[in-house]
């Protein structure tokens, strides 16, 4: 059963004398029980607005929210059974760290021993045992963030909302905490939604990722699917590091299917037999498309695409080779070192089966094979 269901959510911020801001548009999303979902997107894409509407600090302009079968979008925050870790931490200043974490448990009138046990347990998990008796103003931003996270996770709630839960932490600690929090959530079957703009964090922690842009949910899928089968040009270029290579191509009919030409330098034959009917129809009606290929799928040193090397970086475990091909930039990632200096000519192999093809409106016409 779906734990959380967002239906047709719209959020419009209106302020006098200004254009209304449409922060979230027609958002439909269903989160299963025990699932961890990331809301991923750049600043101002509507992800935090979505989170705050679920928590109840923002009204929904249209649509409905159901949590565990209850319609919650008209309930006050106190009755939604939702826990939240805030981006700005928002700890209670007059209380110690321990009291901050225990606050909701005490309000729920749990026995004192139980409260202590749970606070100690969660404090160990996020490594704040040694500052339990400090006050929020006396600890660092990273520590405050962990306290805020602990304060949310210690509660019994139907849904956990985490707004940029690890933005302030050092990289090593972040990696450790991600693992621990993921296993805690999984072990207890907790349903969580977190907001992030960090792809690595989204991939590491979430079961599914909701990519948002301009208030619109672009795609809601697993990381593998987002990478392999991006729904549109935005997801394709947003997900993946380094980003997908994108080129303009002209579509022509050929004997066996279609021929996509990028200027005079590259040509790709797409067999009509490999396309489904819908895709073939769309492709036939689209003279200009965008084609995309992941840098990891370009093979350096073979193939018929000649590029002039612009840069060649060895990152310790992989090489990023950027090459210029008739004014278009292509980036290739290979696992080994490449002996090519800037200015030299090398060959790149781009196979037609690895191409994603996007139509004029940005939606994907064909995904790469084997994804």
């Amino acid at each position: 059963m779906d734990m959380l269901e967002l239906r047709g959510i719209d959020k419009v911020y209106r302020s006098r004398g200004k254009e209304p801001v449409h922060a979230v548009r027609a958002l439909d999303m269903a989160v299963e029980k025990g699932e961890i979902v990331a809301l991923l997107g750049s600043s101002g894409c509507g992800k935090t607005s979505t989170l705050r509407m679920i928590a109840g600090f923002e009204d929904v302009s249209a649509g409905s929210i159901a949590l565990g079968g209850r319609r919650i979008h008209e309930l006050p925050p106190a009755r939604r059974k939702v826990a939240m870790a805030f981006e700005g931490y928002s700890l209670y200043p007059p209380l110690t760290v321990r009291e901050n974490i225990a606050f909701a448990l005490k309000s729920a009138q749990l026995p004192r021993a139980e409260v202590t046990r749970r606070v100690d347990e969660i404090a160990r998990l996020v490594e704040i045992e040694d500052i339990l008796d400090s006050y929020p103003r006396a600890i660092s931003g990273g520590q405050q963030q962990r306290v805020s996270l602990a304060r949310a996770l210690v509660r019994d709630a139907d849904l956990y909302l985490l707004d940029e839960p690890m933005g302030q932490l050092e990289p090593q600690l972040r990696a450790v905490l991600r693992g621990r929090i993921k296993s805690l959530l999984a072990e207890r079957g907790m349903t969580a939604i977190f907001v992030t703009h960090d792809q690595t964090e989204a991939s590491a922690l979430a079961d599914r990722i909701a990519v948002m842009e301009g208030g619109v949910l672009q795609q809601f899928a697993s990381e593998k699917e987002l990478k392999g089968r991006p729904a549109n040009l935005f997801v394709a270029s947003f997900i993946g590091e380094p980003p997908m290579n994108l080129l303009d191509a002209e579509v022509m009919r050929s004997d066996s299917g279609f021929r996509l030409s990028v200027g005079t330098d590259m040509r790709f034959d797409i067999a009509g037999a490999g396309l489904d009917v819908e895709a073939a129809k769309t492709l036939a009606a689209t003279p200009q498309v965008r084609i995309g290929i992941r840098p990891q799928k370009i093979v350096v040193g073979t193939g018929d695409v000649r590029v002039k090397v612009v840069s060649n970086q060895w990152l310790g475990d992989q090489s990023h080779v950027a090459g210029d091909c008739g004014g278009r930039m292509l980036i290739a990632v290979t696992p080994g070192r490449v002996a090519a200096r800037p200015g030299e000519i090398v060959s790149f192999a781009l196979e037609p089966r690895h191409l994603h093809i996007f139509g004029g409106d940005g939606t994907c016409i064909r995904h790469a094979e084997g994804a």
Partner: protein
Amino acid sequence: MEHSSLAGRIFRGVALTLILIFFMFPIVWIFLMSFQTNEQILRIPPRILFEPTLANYEALISGQLRTAAGNLQISFMRNLFNSVVLSSAAVLLALLLGVPAAYAFARFKFRLGESIAFTLLSFRFAPPLLVLLPLSLYYQELGLNDTYFGIVWVYQLIALPLILWIVRGYFEDISPDIEHAYRLAGHSWREAFTRIAVPLAGPGIAAAGLLSFIFCWNNFVFALILASADKQPVTVGALAFVTASGIQYGQIAAAIVLSVTPTLLLALYAQRYLVEGLSLGAVKG
């Protein structure tokens, strides 16, 4: 500080003493005057050393003002009591009305919100006398003239805008997410206001309350026009010391000392709260 030379320290000490004398002199002189008779005060040249007398305080407390022209009844203690009642009631009422209003202005954007807030502030712009003339006519019609309630109501012109605008700033400095966190933990909006917002803005509320108390205490014209003898505060009551047989400097000084005392005590008490919350800024992280 530790690295400063001996000369520097001496200079600093001297400078501080001079400044202290300069600012404290009027108050110290009044304090000394309050223990002297009119003759001692008016003696030329004035003397620092004198034989102290409690006659001034006695006269004030007993209400018997002995002058060369005979005995005069004064109701100084009554005036002092009126001042305490009027100022406290005015500040309490202003806090009850102003703190929730300040919260509303800080947290919610509503139609005409800024205009209302500004209108309330503009009460402070108007010359009090200009307001008073029509007001006293209305008060006579409404029967509010010479009532505690009427004066307390007029004092809202002083206290309410001050509290509203100072406390609003403090509420705006508190991250709304602290209240949100509290509400998510199962508390109502009202509890978040009383248990989180108000305590966190406590120092601001204390400061605004103290300031408006001082302004109310020192008000003169409102009470002069709207109150008769038995409702007058000390500021108006002090006029009684200008008698037919001259100005009673000794008693005035004693009256000043007595009338400053409640405000001073309140300020010392409120200081605790003023300092306590200065760490609030750390919340923003």
